[in-house]
């Protein structure tokens, strides 16, 4: 289970960010914010040649002492960042990938909502 999930707009501002230990949310804000450096770097490193069959999953962005930060970028440059507990060894690349896929599906659902204004904060009932 991820401890923090974030959806970040193309212009690098958060559309949605939520962490499980809610008491220190700002810490995750910083963590996700700084991870964008790596995301940007990875996207630019991938280059334009592979746009078509580009892998959306960016893999591990960086590890910290307690957490691992994974990234995923959609074709529309919306970024998903997930922070998982590094002690949780059950989560391997495949699990992370499937979590991102689920997240991507949910995001697609949100975008399909005719009442959602692209670019606005995503509100979640839960």
């Amino acid at each position, binding site marked *: 289970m991820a401890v923090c999930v974030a959806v970040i707009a193309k212009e*690098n501002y958060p559309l949605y960010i939520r962490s499980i230990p809610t008491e220190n949310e700002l810490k995750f804000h910083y963590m996700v*914010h700084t991870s964008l450096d790596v995301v940007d*770097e990875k996207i630019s490193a991938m280059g334009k040649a592979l746009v078509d069959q580009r892998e959306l999953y960016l893999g591990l962005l960086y590890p910290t002492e307690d957490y691992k930060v994974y990234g995923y970028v959609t074709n529309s440059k919306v970024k998903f960042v997930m922070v998982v507990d590094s002690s949780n060894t059950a989560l391997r690349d495949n699990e992370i990938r499937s979590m991102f896929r689920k997240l991507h599906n949910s995001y697609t659902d949100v975008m399909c909502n005719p009442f959602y204004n692209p670019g606005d904060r995503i509100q979640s009932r839960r």
Partner: protein
Amino acid sequence: MSVPDYMQCAEDHQTLLVVVQPVGIVSEENFFRIYKRISSVSQISVRDSQRALYIRYRHHYPPENSEWGDFQTHRKVVGLITITDCFSAKDWPQIFEKFHVQKEIYGSTLYDSRLFVFGLQGEIAEQPRTDVAFYPSYEDCATVEKRIEDFVESLFIVLESKRLDRATDKSGDKIPLLCVPFEKKDFVGLDTDRRSKWEGSLQWWRGKGAVHWVSDFLKLSGTDFAALEGLCSASVIYHYPGGTGGKAGARRFPGSALPAEAANRHRPGALTTNGINADTSTEIGRAKNCLSPEDIIEKYKEAISYYSKYKNAGVIELEACVKAVRVLAIQKRSMEASEFLQNAVYINLRQLSEEEKIQRYSILSELYELIGFHRKSAFFKRVAAMQCVAPSISEPGWRACYKLLLETLPGYSLSLDPQDFNKGTHRGWAAVQMRLLHELVYASRRMGNPALSVRHLSFLLQTMLDFLSDQEKKDVTQSLENYTSKCPGTMELLTLPDGLTLPPVPFTKLPIVRRVKLLDLPASLRPQKMKSSLGPSVSAKSPFIYSPIIAHSRGEERSKKIDFQWVQGDVCEVQLMVYNPMPFELRVENMGLLTSGVEFESLPAALSLPAESGLYPVTLVGVPQTTGTITVSGYHTTVFGVFSDCLLDSLPGIKTSGSTVEVIPALPRLQISTSLPRSAHSLQPSSGDEISTNVSVQLYNGETQQLVVRLENIGMEPLEKLEVTSKILTTKEKLYGDFLSWKLEDTLAQFPLQPGKVATFTISIKVKLDFSCQENLLQDLSDDGISVSGFPLCSPFRQVVRPRVESKPVNAAEGGRPGEPCHVKTLEAVLNFKYSGGPGHVEGYYRNLALGLHVEVEPSVFFTRVSTLPATSTRQCHLLLDVFNATEHELSVGARSDEELILHAGECQRMAIQVDKFNFESFPESPADKGQFANSKHLEEERQEARGLEINSKLDIHWTIISFSQTRGASVEGLLNQLVLEHLQLAPLLWDVLVDGQPCDCQAAACRVGDPVRLEVRLTNRSPRSVGPFALSVVPFQDHQNGVHSYDLRHAVSFVGSGTFYLDKVQPSGQAACLGALLFLYTGDFFLHIRFHEDGPSKELPPSWFCLPSVHVRALEAQA
């Protein structure tokens, strides 16, 4: 353990470390002056060698740092320069002693040292010494650089000699093994034997660029970690002659030959272009042995992984990481660099002091910046900033903290200019930005700069408003108010000591302004331009009636300019639609307008907006003091103690309908009050004019009232001109006579009206509506069966008195009839007072004050029916009017001087008025003159109206409510129909009957029995056509006064001659006559009925034209 030097880069490996330190008391200023001069000597070409020698100077270097000097010679302090003040020879030995102590500190590694003494003169200074230099003062020390060069050279000689020693020494075994510092304590049992042999001079050699030599060494020492790093450094120096440390790069290669060489070096293995260069083999060898850029990183990784095995090698590891990152930054391999940095973050050194922590975080931030990780860089900078004020620090460095925090701003994509946030919705990482702003506020407050914290807090509130929770909004505003109570927020640019300027933060969102609308002056004060007769402005613009191009450009130009004017000296208004986004009541003080172009006295307002109000209109006012074109550029407010100047141009999502208006010169102001009560009833807006005052009055139909208007000049300019016009609003009611009439001359005599003066003006209101009634009332009296054509049947003054009791039920049954008192008609009119004066008048402007007049007309009397009866004379007739009293009062009705008729309320009576017939043709037919009345119906109406007026003036019917004893007029104009008119009209054929030469009309003509009576019928043709011929027969008859007419009078009357008269054709305005004679045989009253023979021509003419007087002849007894 040593302290890490974060500034290190790979090039530093080729340098010699020289420590420069003061001894005794040396002022910082002086020391750094000398230090600067010393450090300028950073590269020296030693004689006998083509190669340069690089020197690194440090003024602070803990001796422990030399611990690893055996492995990395650039860590070893090889030279010491001390600087000291000495003013008397007495102090000299003491100072010299100190110098020695200082030397002791670095003693183990030191090759040479120098002492620079400033201020000492005399014999001691005369002594020539190699290790001491004397200068009289800090200004007078021209030879410092030379001395340093000598000093460096001496260091070189020492090193060179050591190298030569080793080079000649074939047995490496004799050299003492090198140990890493911690190995002295705990031997790990690695192959120290092999590892450390060559280290000492390796660095030195590498410094000399002998890469091939290094590679040789590599074969010897294998995987030795320190050597790995050394190799990396050598390769880096080789590959990146520009330097990796960034700022120092230029300093290192001042030599002219180097750039060309560097260019070659970028292509490893390429032959040098300097063909004669004897050292080509060396060049090739270098390229061969040097690591490729990828390998450098590999080796760095390897080296670091070795270092990391030893806890005590933390510093070395950290430094290696830093160096590697610098190299990677140049290679633009950010991802790998970030991995190195990530590793560096986790290297645990011993307990660091706070200062070291700050340094470490700052350097991390710098390195992240270097590899383009701005966010990460900002993060560490912020951590460093927080470290500056950590609670464990006794003296928190708020200033440093603030400075560091400011540096993080770009990393969080935050600028301190609120203008940047005006473009659309805020798209940033609000949570972290807000946190940073809060920290800035706090730091600036602790720094003791309240103006700064107010500015930051205002910025936070302004730009992050959408992201603040309700509670946060409250907290932020609360603290903002606290700050501003000591230091109010201004619109000035704040400049920080380091040159950064903080632009002002206007609160454009507190409140949010949605719409700005410049308001026209109220209608009564609105200036209007007098229409010039020539109208040059229209024709000058374009010769075309319509041109899309011109219209377009003009439209754009006009889009900002509003087509009304403001007047100098008058209060002008601008309406703003605002709303309060705050969850609490917002108090906005000192809200006023910002204008340009015209001197404008703004009258600020204070307002209080309820929590999260909807759009709320606010009107800002001001008085233009001069004339010209005024532009409303914005507004200013004071909210929470912060002054803001909000410019409309920079407001997002604002709607304006233009902001430029012309201010015209001052005009007087007129205030009017009237004798009539003001009315709440306002005229219909369709009237077009906006009416400032409304007065109302209730009048009975036919009543006249005087309206006294009091004109007061309440402005500052004299009132010079006044024009009064009236406009009666379209009403269905037909109005007779002048509704409003006035005489302006008396009022104008009082002009010009100075400010504060009063003039009066009288208007008479005369209401005369239709006195006729609908048809249903006509039936009331129709039982009389009065015929319009006929003979005088009965007495002309006949009264049909209907008792009130009888009429009441009829009224009740037919509700809503005009006879009821509830049926009130209204008349509305607008009186326009156009006035002007002062400078505005000169410019051709005037003002228009409209007075609305609302008159309720109550019915007074009705003429329910009108008819005519021929009078005895053909020149006269009786007008019969059924008069109905619709008031609730008893009233009397009369015409001319005739007796009055008393009518009770609701009573209807008939009155007859004997009138002379009218000769309408005698007065000019005005409508006929006007050709434009093509419509004949219209023309007819006009004519009828004129006739009605004529008749009315003759009749002069008036009524009086007895209890009020005031006479009012009534009018019959409306009820005269064509038929009645015709009867009232004098026929165009005038028939006169003369009996014995006497015109006989109503009186009986007397004659004697037996005498022939001459009868003459005379016709005057006034019609525009010729008439006739006519044949007339005279029929005598006797009226028995009982309805019986006896025509059989053959025995009583005999004709002398023919009984039939003939009249020839009569030309227009011609006259004809025919004569005959009668002989009465008996006495008696005889009537003669003159009849027309019904032949052709007479049929074409209306019957009323043939209205001959009946002749009454009284035959008397013949005189004896």
